[in-house]
């Protein structure tokens, strides 16, 4: 696939999803960049902002097999991965695959399940396989996890462990829509739009998605930009407001996403803006702030913003 085709399809996907999810173009762009670089996404936002709608629209335009798991406190790992069930007639154990055996998995309100159940996704997300009773079963390709969580509730929720968070390529924050966008939304609802009965035409199929995921690998990155990425991530490890900095997986993720963003812009080379534009989404869930910073009211986005404001851009004229 050529870069031009990639851009055309990407623009088509963007237009289609933006038509459903109003006023969240940046969120959609981030989600597409992560999907097309083969990464998993954690979407965070208060209830009612259209997180689930976004994922459903995405599954339809991508033409992929879509499964949803509503994470609850009593959800067990086998409810995610599936398990061996005794077949009395045949006298043997039959494997019943869980919802994780799908191409697009929506883990809705992932932080409502305990850590044991959340951890069932660790192997699936990293290795793209599931091991049950000593037998490893590969997951279909593509395999993408889109998890949502609510940032404001603390009772009855289980924060995701760092190892789990690190496996998400991006963490996207969904914010409230602007006033005029909300008016458009209301007008659409008044005209009969029902998100429960959403039907969006597929733009691509599974094979095209796999083909598209290979395109960013062909995008060139100059050594100065690799240096820029490394400096940004290294800065998170020495910043005084951060207790635990980002891992090399974050650097790799930033590189992959920057390449995908360049391809989406129809370029076969990366520019500094591609890197800087995704740095927050890549790093915000990978850094652990000092307790002092939390008490002072600093957020991960603030700290990453200060790092970006201090890290010199390659070819900067100052």
């Amino acid at each position, binding site marked *: 696939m050529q870069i031009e085709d990639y851009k055309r399809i990407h623009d088509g996907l963007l237009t289609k999803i933006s038509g459903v999810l109003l006023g969240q173009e940046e969120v959609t762009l981030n989600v597409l960049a992560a999907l097309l670089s083969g990464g998993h996404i954690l979407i965070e936002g208060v209830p009612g902002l259209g997180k689930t709608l976004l994922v459903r629209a995405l599954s339809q335009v991508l033409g992929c097999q879509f499964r949803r798991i509503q994470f609850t406190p009593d959800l067990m790992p086998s409810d995610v991965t599936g398990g061996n069930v005794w077949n009395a007639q045949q006298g043997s154990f039959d494997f019943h695959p869980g919802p994780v055996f799908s191409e697009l998995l929506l883990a809705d309100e992932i932080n409502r399940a305990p850590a044991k159940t959340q951890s069932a996704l660790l192997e699936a997300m990293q290795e793209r396989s599931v091991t049950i009773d000593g037998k490893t079963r590969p997951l279909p390709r593509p395999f993408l996890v889109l998890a949502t969580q609510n940032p404001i509730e*603390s009772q009855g929720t289980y924060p995701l462990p760092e190892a789990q968070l690190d496996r998400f390529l991006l963490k996207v924050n969904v914010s409230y829509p602007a006033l005029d966008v909300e008016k458009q939304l209301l007008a659409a609802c008044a005209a009969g739009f029902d998100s429960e009965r959403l039907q969006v035409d597929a733009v691509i199929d599974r094979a095209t998605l796999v083909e598209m995921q290979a395109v960013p690998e062909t995008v060139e990155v100059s050594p100065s930009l*690799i240096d820029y990425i490394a400096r940004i991530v290294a800065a998170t490890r020495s910043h005084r407001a951060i207790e635990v900095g980002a891992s090399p997986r974050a650097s790799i993720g930033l590189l992959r996403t920057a390449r995908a963003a360049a391809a989406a812009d129809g370029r076969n080379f990366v520019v500094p803006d591609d890197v*800087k534009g995704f740095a927050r989404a890549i790093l915000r869930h990978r850094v652990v702030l000092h307790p002092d910073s939390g*008490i002072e009211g600093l957020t991960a986005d603030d700290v990453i913003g200060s790092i970006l404001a*201090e890290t010199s851009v390659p*070819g*900067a*004229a100052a």
Partner: protein
Amino acid sequence: MKRLGRALSRVWALCLLCASAANADVAQPPPQLFEDQSLTAQSDPNQSSSDQSTADQSMPEQPTPGRILLSPDEGARGDIATRLASGRFRFCSEESYRLWEVDKDRLCPHLGKVAADCPGLVAACARPAWDEATPEPSSPGWFFELTKFLGNYGGQLLRALFWLAVALGAIFLLRGVLTTLRRDGSSEAGAATAPTLMPTVDVETAGQPTEVLLARAAEYLESGDPRRALHFAYAALLSGLDHAGLVRVHRALTSGDYRRSLARSGRGQAAGTLLWDLDLARFRHVVDSTGAHGLTSRVREVLAALGAVLLFLAPSGLLGCSPGSDAEGPMAPTAPRGYALFEELASTRFMSFTRRLRRVTELPEGTSSVLVVDAHLRKLEWETLSRFVTQGGRLVVAGSPDGLADAFGLGPEPSDCTGPIEVSGIDVVTPDTTGVSLVALGADDSEGVLATCGASDFARFHRHGAGRVTLIGDASIFDNTSLALGDNASFVLHLFGGPQRHVEFIGPWTGTGAFHPMESIARSTTGPWLLHLLGMLALLAWSRGRRFGAPRPPAPSKRRSWIEHAQALASHYERQGDTGAALSRYASWALSLLGKRSGSSNRDLRALAEALVSKQGVKNRADEAAEVHHLLLRARAGAELGGDKAKLLRGYRVLRTMVSDVAGRR
């Protein structure tokens, strides 16, 4: 040893006595003022006619007996012209320069005789001059009185204390720096080092003017390096936008950031697009040379368009807002009354040349000449100079400094100049035209005359011991104004004669350093500021309540106190929106603390409320206790009660204040 020394000194004194007796008996040969033989020959009134005829071939006129014939020094004249044209001497080159009134009176009548083409001087003479007024000292008078009162011994004590404080401060600072470095080193050693890759193109563009950056871009384009050219074109465009006030350049900003900034401001969208195009071209794998040419041309066009803005801003400089029109200090080195021209000339002509700042208690080894211009020297210093001349040194004294007569037995008296300055062989112009006070040097004791002023001598030399003293009537002959005129530079160089090893330049600045820190503060007129600062520090110390020298409490633990943990936890719940849980968790801890501190049980909330109220010394106890009781009840049941969030928050805050009041922060 003492005997040997005494014997040697007696032998030396005997030799001196013999020499002076011989000088008195034998006809004195003409003084060997200058090493170059031609001048010496011309200054000899008894020289043979054949020698004289040889001298006449090179010199325009025959000097009067005792007068020295000087030849113009073309090198010095050229040197002066070059320096004046260099742009550093603003009075000569700057169109917007304004002279001080004194300088205007001195320079402007001699415009035709300025050694170099000075366009600025013509303009400066046409402009009104600055009024020179003596600034009032801003330090209080008693401060000066105090420095006088302290005198020598007090001053020495202060000086010692000052240096002791500085040394202690330096040690403290050094210790701090070393500790920090050690800590940083250990943390760096423990931390993983980030991979460092060299950028593809390493260009240094920071701090260069726009036109230079553009020129370099063109150079790299010509030399076939389009990528580097694009980096410079990008930097040039940003520099132009920065100067036009459209963006603020920063090393951490990308083209996208600049584009957004330009879009927000609603100006320079074309420039924003061009920035983006340049960025795309710079980071492309293969850079197209033709494209680079096109982009550089577009940068030129955009900068030309921006030039209109810059031109609009430029007249503000012409209207007197530019730094060029600032008044230059009247005694600044490059001002008309400064000595920069002479110093630079001397530095190139003499083997070494020093502007003397310290007191003249001793002279550096190898000093061949000393120039004294308008200096205020003490008796001890004149004695040092006298010893120097007696031992064969040369002293050039300009003006009539106090102490000269006592040290050398020369008694010049001030008198008005009765005619133009006349020097044989060269054209000397004194800038002070009328009313200038010259020195009537008299003709009784001179060994040779270099210049006259009507009936008086203006410059002449005397033998003193094994050396010579040259006296000049006007000290201003050495300043920039004087050296810019006629052949004054040649004249000034002739005063020193032949090649010089080391020349010391003594002026009004010599030995003017403060004797102790208090004097220095008084002179710098920073006394009120320092007193103000001290007052502020005293207030700060008083507000902190710690006596100076009191033992320091142990360093606070980095761990936060339990109260802060509890508050942080509660704040966390509050941020999460679970205000009821926040209040109940905080309340359970706060109630136990309040119970302990107030000496009451936290089980009986009514008793606790009364204890708290009595501790606070409230007048209307019953009402207050009921209110506090209600608050405590609500706080303990906060989570279960739920309800209005604002009310719960208010209760939480009141409880927090109560804990702070009763239990303290820690």
